[in-house]
């Protein structure tokens, strides 16, 4: 019994010692300049986020996931928890008018996601910037041109088959 107690005591001391040591190492390296992600703060301070920062840090993925299925399956729209709303506040052009895309570590989302090595798939389908910053050319004319070419080709092929 005493032997068991002594062994436990030794283990506890060892654990405490180890954790103290690692904590001091962490603090030490932090002071030595651990790189932290550069997270863009929205310039418009009058708009408040839907939740406090600490809640958003932990829960943002759950909010978005919940809203995603409701919107997709049930057609419920206009909820404040939405990816588009995140993007609309947090993605802004820099002083040169350029927007850092999701592929850079300057983008609001990828800043943390790259830092924590968590892959982010949202932007394979969703735009990584607010709609107002997307310049769109009308593709209609080029599409129409393509269609004309296709038609001409298929007409030629048609004639070849029939006659």
């Amino acid at each position, binding site marked *: 019994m005493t032997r068991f107690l002594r062994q436990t005591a030794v283990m506890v001391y060892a654990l405490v010692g180890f954790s103290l040591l690692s904590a001091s190492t962490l603090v030490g390296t932090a002071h030595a300049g651990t790189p932290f992600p550069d997270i863009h703060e929205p310039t418009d301070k009058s708009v408040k986020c839907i939740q406090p920062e600490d809640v958003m840090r932990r829960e943002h993925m759950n909010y978005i996931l919940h809203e*995603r*299925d*409701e919107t*997709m*399956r*049930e*057609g*419920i*729209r*206009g*909820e404040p928890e939405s990816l*588009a709303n995140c993007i609309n506040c947090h993605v802004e052009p820099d002083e040169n008018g350029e927007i850092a*895309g999701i592929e850079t570590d300057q983008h609001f989302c990828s800043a943390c996601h790259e830092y924590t090595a968590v892959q982010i798939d949202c932007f*394979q*389908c*969703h*735009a*990584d*910037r607010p*709609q107002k910053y*997307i310049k*769109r050319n*009308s*593709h*209609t004319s*080029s*599409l*129409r*041109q*393509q*269609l*004309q070419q*296709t*038609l001409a*080709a*298929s007409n030629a*092929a048609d004639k070849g088959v029939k006659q």
Partner: protein
Amino acid sequence: MKKTENKTINNSRRDFLSKAAVAGTITIAPGVLLHSTSAHAIDGDATDLNTSVSTRPLDQEVSSKNRWGMLIDTTKCATGCTDCVDACNEENGLIGHNRPETDAQYIRKVTLKSKSTGHELSLPLMCQHCETAPCADVCPTGASFVRADGIALVDKHICIGCRYCMMACPYKARSFVHEDVKNQKLSAPRGKGTVEACTMCVTRVDNGGIPACVEACTAENHNAMIFGDLKDPNSPISIELKKHGGKQLRSDLALNTGVRYQGMNE
């Protein structure tokens, strides 16, 4: 050798669909606009035709009280006009890569020619929004589904891009995204590796609007397309269907499509 003309209903449908498939893959549409694109005043009748829209509050889920559908009058659909196709591409941010075989298309113009009479007609063909949709039947992940109000959709969040639905669809209505996509429209998220098709402009519909194709067709004063609630007996689409009837493409498959056609005479 020429087949003997057997004019049973089933044969003509088969003829129609084989043509539709061929025409759809290669013909797509001539890009010539036969109609003036100058602003047309929408006449009273035209606006009235599309008054059946969603009144559901956006915080409530869709229900089977509505069934959204379209009625297309092929006699008013001009050969060569691609206003609906252009509007769709614009609305959904569909950009061609000069690869017609694989470029995404939600709606395409199909020209049909009757073998017996030589009568030609042109119609827009898109997802028919089946009630019992083959795409949803075969989907291994549940990504393809039909919403309670009858709109067939792809949940790209869980689509694995297997393209089984594309093979199952009798209308060749679906496309696969082969290229990386950037700067998507807010109402039309789309990305590489997923299947997509006409969504009946679901965001517009939810917000009490009408699909972009119907809007363009009406705005250009062709009035060949009516959008509305098939379950509301007083909606213009239901009244028109009751009065003059409408065809479902491949009605032999009993899919109960949400898109109906008129004027498909031989």
